[in-house]
Each structure stands twice: as structure tokens, then as C-alpha cells.
């Protein structure tokens, strides 16, 4: 089925007539619309047009138009779809008229017709258009081909609040033709259930002379079967509760991880506090000590330093003027004799020089006086050096203590931050504990139910044996028994074939979904397809959590996987060409994922129609043939219109989106 053109008239906010022409052969058709503009309603229009039912159970006519009408006036909601199927053009037309009375409007007329154009261009109405369209696109599959991405995203992960949850299994089984097997198995049935062939045949059996109880036995068997069904439904419910509790606990455990509890953190915090108190005490003691040492020794230390300086200066001076091997006794002697060592008389100039030297020599020299002073001071000063060394070391220690205190304070801040987080953590721990308790109780309850179910099964089988034994000797009953046995064999063969096909299709579907996820999702995820066709998704840390964006990508991958499986497999009874009409959940996707999705989307189906609130011009810009439309809206007036897309100003300027 390839859609060519649709006309929509007076459907909900789409007052008046609007038309969309569709692309086919893998080319996209895009309908842009902001939130609240009517994208989803336009999407649901297709469902109404095909099957005559509004998915949201809303009033389908345009309310403002109805309001402005007079009593007795009529408004007609109509849709016309031109499509091609098996090489022939068709026109599908549906309308519903509503007549206004004083207080309300009621449906006054409706019709649904399909015209088929034969090879000579002649138009002929098809008989039973409802059946015809069911044949082309079964309504069970409509959830898939009128694809609501967000609903699908939650449904795929087994979210029971999703309105489509029950339909997922039905839809996939229908797509793969397995629904026919399920129905056949159900309709051949068994003696333990009503409304099936075997049960109806068994009702034809007659009672025997010695026992008029076949009816009673059948009744008993049915009663037990119903009881077993209720118990089995309870077991299924409990299993599902258990699996969601276990899933939640895995998530909680991941959140809790190896993080410390508040108790551990508080202990660590207290020990750091104690350590800092100790350090501060020692710091104060050391500061006192240093103060004391400084008070006692600083003056000496300063003096000692000065003495050293003076000593250096004097030594330098002496070195400049002192002659080696000369002492004061020799100089005095030479001055008294007025004769030099060389025997010459000492001149005036030499005498002055000798006297200068004499002043520099002990016992009256400056350095001698200095050394005397130094010796006297040395005892006191030696202590000050030692004290200063102690002071220096203590100051170093004080700096280390200060660092340690500051590190501890930072660690305390970090602990406080963690403690704030632990409030959530403790809530998680409590929830996990509560869940564990619930799991324990549910497991007990489930085991009890399973015992009861197994007990019912034993009784049912025994009753069926009794019933067969009771009837086997009678000719009429024997023939019925043979028929029942034959039907049971047919049913078991169908069951076997069903299970084989189901396993095969499931594997193929899982493989295709995995391939699609790998191509579309940048993060690596392990995908498993469950028996009810929901997905178990986990990463390498066994975490099952998914962002909204990832869930959306996976929903695209899922539908892609389903459609690819359908293309690759030899599935009987089901046509392989479907249009895909997507209410696309791309608002949660980053640009990389939008690119990835749009890279693969055209391969899903030979016709894809996308409803989007995000600008995806960039993703499709290479394809000039993309047909694009926009929904203009006047929300206050509850009116909307569909127009060809003019420019990206639609996304940035409200005046370009407003319907005047």
C-alpha cells in the first residue's frame, strides 16, 4: 500500500479542507507542527479514516464551526485518501455528518467507500470496504504503522501504564502471522474451555446407562479450568510484579553502589574533627613555645648575628693592615730603640705606621677587645642559636600542622556534601529493603499459587480421563472421541509449528533490533527480546536505566527491526508493503542521534511520513524531493491549517506559525 494524497476536512481543529501529497519510494514526507498544533490529532485522523474510530475517543468535528451554526445545520467530517495497492489506484472515502440541535450535535449520517481503478481507467466500488481495508492493513497493526514513538518507547520496556502495552504482543504476532496460529489453537480448544470445537463436540456425547454424569464431569472440569485460569492469571500478575520489583532493586543497588552510609561518613567525619582538635591543641602549644623561646632568645640572637657581622668587619680590617709574624712586644722594642729590624733608623713616617700597627695588636687592639667581648658573650649566645634552631623547626612543624588541618577541613566539607546525598541514599536503601521484603512475600504467594494451579491441573486431567473412559464403549461416543482425539492432534501440531515459528521469528527480530540499535545508538547496550516482545536493555555494568533520548532511539530501532524482519522472512498471510506514519519522538534526541536515526529511517519502509516538532531540514536537506508541510495554528480559536512548508522561519518566528 502506497499513500498518494489525503484530503482532510473539518476533522477536530482542521476546519475546512486541507490536502497533503505524499512521497513514496523511500522519500520522506514531513509535517511540521509545534506542540499543541494538532500533530497527534492529524496522526489519529489516519486511524479514523482507515477504521472509523477515533483513537482518543474525542469529538471529531470542528467545535468552533459547530458553535457558529444554527440548530438543524449539519457539519460533515470527511477524509479522502488516494492510494495504490497491488499496482492499482484506489480512492478511500469516509465521512460522518453531525446535525446540530439546541443543546448538542449528534451523528446524522456516515459512509465509507473504496473505489478501485482498473487497467482501463474504470472506477468500481469494492464490496465490503471495511474488510477490504482490514485485508490490506489489519487494524491490529495500526499501532505499528501509525506509530506513536513515545508510547512505544515506554511500552518496549514493559511499562504497564502504557496504553499500548497489551497490544505489543498482539501486534508483533499479527505481523508475523502467528496470531492465526494462536486463534486456531484457541478455536480447536479443549474440553476444559468453553466456546471451542472440542468442547462443542464433547457436548454431543451422551450419558451411559450406569452413569449419567458426563455433563457433571464436564462442568466440574470447566469449573476447575476457570479456577486454574484465575490462579494462573494471579501467578502472571505476581511474576510481573516480582520482575518490576527486581528491576527497581537493580536500579537502586546501582545508585547505592559502594557508597558509604551516613553512619560510616559520620564516623569518619568525627574522627577528622577529633584529629583537627588534637592538631589545633598541639599547634597552640607549639606557638606558645615558640613565643617563649623568641622572647628569651631573640635579643641574644640578634646580638649574636651582629657580633658575627662586626667580627667579620674587624677581621677584614685587621687582615688589611696586619703584618704576619709581628707582635706588640717586637713593635714596642723597635720603637724604643728607634731602629728597624734591618738596622736603619726609624723615620717619622715609619714611626706613625708602627704606632698604627701597635694599636691593632693585643692587648689594646679593636679585635682583641672584640674577642674579649665575644668570649664573654659566647656562653649566653650559644644557647640562643640552639633556641633559634628549635624555633625554625617548630615553625616548619606549625606549617605542616596548618596544612593537615586545612586538608582535614576540606575532607569534612566533602563528607558533608556526601551526607547531603546520603539523605537520598538512605531513602534508596530503605526502599530496597522494603522491596526485598515484598519480593520475599510475593515469592511465597507465587509458590502457593503454583501449588494450587498444579493441583487443579491434576484434577482436570483426572476428570478428562474419567470422561473419556466413561464414553469409550458407546459407538456414538466412540466416534466423537475419535474426532476429539484427531482435533487434539491437529491442535498439538499447530502448537508445535507455532512454537517453532515463534522461536525463529523472535530470533530474527532480536537480531534485526540489535543491528538497528548498534547503528542508531552511540552508547553500547545489550538487547534481549522477551517472550512478550518487550525489551530487556542493559549496559556493560548491568544498568537498565535509559535516558528519554536513548529510549526514543531504541523505539526507532525496534520498528526498524520489525520491518526488516518482515522483509527478510517468509511470513505467510501478511503483506510486506506498509506505509510508516510516525509521530516521531525526536525532541529528546541530540543532533548526533537525529542524524543516525534519519540515516537509517528511509530504509524502514518504502513510504515514511513523519510528524515532527523539531526542524529536521538538515537531516533531509540532501534529498530535494522531500515533501514538507506545516501546521499553522490559532490555539485560542481551536483552528489549524496545513500548508506547504515555506522556510525555517516557521521555527523561529511565531508569526510564521500562526493561523490568522
Amino acid at each position, binding site marked *: 500500500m502506497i499513500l498518494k494524497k489525503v484530503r482532510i476536512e473539518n476533522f477536530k481543529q482542521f476546519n475546512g479542507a486541507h490536502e497533503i501529497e505524499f512521497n513514496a519510494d523511500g522519500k520522506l514526507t514531513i509535517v511540521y507542527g509545534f506542540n499543541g498544533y494538532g500533530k497527534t490529532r492529524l496522526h489519529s485522523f489516519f486511524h479514523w479514516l482507515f477504521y472509523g474510530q477515533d483513537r482518543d475517543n474525542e469529538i471529531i468535528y470542528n467545535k468552533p464551526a459547530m458553535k457558529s451554526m444554527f440548530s438543524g445545520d449539519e457539519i460533515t467530517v470527511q477524509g479522502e485518501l488516494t492510494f495504490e495497492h497491488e499496482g492499482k489506484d484506489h480512492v478511500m472515502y469516509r465521512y460522518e455528518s453531525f446535525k446540530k440541535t439546541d443543546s448538542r450535535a449528534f451523528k446524522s449520517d456516515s459512509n465509507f467507500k473504496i473505489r478501485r481503478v482498473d487497467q482501463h481507467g474504470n472506477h468500481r466500488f469494492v464490496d*465490503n470496504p*471495511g*474488510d477490504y481495508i*482490514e*485485508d490490506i492493513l*489489519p487494524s491490529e497493526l495500526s499501532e505499528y504503522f501509525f506509530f506513536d514513538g513515545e508510547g512505544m518507547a515506554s511500552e518496549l520496556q514493559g511499562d504497564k501504564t502504557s496504553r499500548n502495552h497489551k497490544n505489543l504482543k498482539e501486534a508483533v504476532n499479527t505481523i508475523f502471522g502467528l*496470531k*492465526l*496460529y494462536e*486463534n*486456531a489453537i484457541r*478455536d*480447536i*480448544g479443549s474440553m476444559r474451555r468453553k*466456546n*471451542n*470445537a472440542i468442547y*462443542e*463436540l464433547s457436548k454431543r456425547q451422551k450419558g451411559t446407562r450406569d452413569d449419567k454424569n458426563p455433563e457433571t464431569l464436564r462442568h466440574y472440569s470447566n469449573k476447575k479450568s476457570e479456577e486454574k485460569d484465575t490462579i494462573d492469571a494471579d501467578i502472571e500478575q505476581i511474576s510481573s510484579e516480582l520482575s518490576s520489583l527486581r528491576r527497581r532493586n537493580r536500579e537502586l543497588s546501582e545508585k547505592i553502589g559502594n557508597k558509604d552510609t551516613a553512619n560510616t561518613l559520620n564516623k569518619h567525619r568525627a574522627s577528622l574533627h577529633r584529629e583537627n582538635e588534637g592538631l589545633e591543641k598541639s599547634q597552640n602549644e607549639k606557638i606558645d613555645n615558640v613565643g617563649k623561646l623568641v622572647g628569651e632568645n631573640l635579643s641574644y640572637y640578634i646580638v649574636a648575628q651582629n657580633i658575627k657581622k662586626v667580627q667579620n668587619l674587624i677581621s677584614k680590617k685587621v687582615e688589611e693592615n696586619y703584618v704576619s709574624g709581628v707582635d706588640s712586644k717586637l713593635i714596642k722594642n723597635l720603637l724604643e730603640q728607634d731602629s728597624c729590624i734591618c738596622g736603619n733608623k726609624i723615620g717619622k713616617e715609619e714611626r706613625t705606621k708602627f704606632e698604627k700597627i701597635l694599636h691593632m695588636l693585643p692587648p689594646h687592639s679593636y679585635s682583641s677587645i672584640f674577642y674579649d667581648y665575644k668570649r664573654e658573650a659566647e656562653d649566653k649566645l650559644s644557647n640562643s642559636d640552639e633556641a633559634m634552631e628549635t624555633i625554625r623547626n617548630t615553625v616548619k612543624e606549625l606549617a605542616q600542622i596548618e596544612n593537615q588541618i586545612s586538608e582535614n577541613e576540606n575532607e569534612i566539607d566533602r563528607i558533608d556534601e556526601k551526607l547531603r546525598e546520603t539523605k537520598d541514599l538512605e531513602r534508596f536503601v530503605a526502599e530496597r529493603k522494603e522491596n526485598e521484603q515484598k519480593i520475599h512475600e510475593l515469592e511465597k504467594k507465587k509458590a502457593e499459587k503454583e501449588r494450587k494451579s498444579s493441583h487443579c491441573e491434576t484434577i482436570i486431567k483426572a476428570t478428562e480421563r474419567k470422561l473419556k473412559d466413561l464414553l469409550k464403549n458407546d459407538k456414538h461416543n466412540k*466416534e466423537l472421541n475419535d*474426532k476429539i482425539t*484427531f*482435533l487434539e*492432534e*491437529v491442535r498439538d*501440531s*499447530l502448537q508445535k*509449528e507455532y512454537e517453532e515459528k515463534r522461536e525463529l521469528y523472535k530470533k530474527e527480530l532480536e537480531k534485526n533490533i540489535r543491528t538497528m540499535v548498534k547503528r542508531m545508538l552511540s552508547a553500547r547496550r545489550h538487547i534481549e527480546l522477551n517472550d512478550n516482545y518487550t525489551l530487556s536493555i542493559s549496559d556493560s555494568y548491568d544498568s537498565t536505566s535509559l535516558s528519554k533520548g536513548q529510549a526514543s532511539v531504541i523505539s526507532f530501532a525496534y520498528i526498524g527491526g520489525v520491518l526488516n524482519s518482515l522483509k527478510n522472512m517468509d511470513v505467510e*498471510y501478511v503483506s510486506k508493503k506498509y506505509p510508516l506514519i510516525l509521530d516521531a519522538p525526536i525532541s529528546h534526541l541530540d543532533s548526533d542521534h537525529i542524524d543516525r536515526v534519519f540515516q537509517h529511517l528511509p530504509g524502514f519502509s518504502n513510504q515514511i511520513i513523519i510528524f515532527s516538532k523539531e526542524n529536521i531540514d538538515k537531516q533531509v536537506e540532501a534529498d530535494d524531493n522531500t515533501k514538507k508541510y506545516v501546521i499553522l495554528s490559532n490555539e485560542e480559536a481551536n483552528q489549524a491549517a496545513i500548508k506547504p512548508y515555506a522556510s525555517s522561519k516557521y521555527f523561529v518566528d511565531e508569526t510564521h506559525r500562526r493561523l490568522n
Partner: protein
Amino acid sequence: MTIEEFMKEVLHIEEKYFREKGNRAAVVRKIINLLDGVWEDDSEKSSD
């Protein structure tokens, strides 16, 4: 009619029902009629 042939017939009935959104009770009746027919054919053959 073999079990396999009967299976195929039942699936055809189901397919028709599925397309026509028919009545389930009618499907059950059709299966029984099919079975009765098979039995009659067999008894005719055996009496021949």
C-alpha cells in the same frame, strides 16, 4: 485428510475470519463442519 491438510484448512478459516472480523462461534462451527465432512468422506470411502 491428513493432520497437516486439516491444519492448513483451519488456518485458512482463521485467516478469513481475521480479515472479515467474523464471529468466533462461526469459526468454531466451520471447524466442526470441516471435521464432520472429513469423517463422512472417510466413512463413504470405507463403505465403498
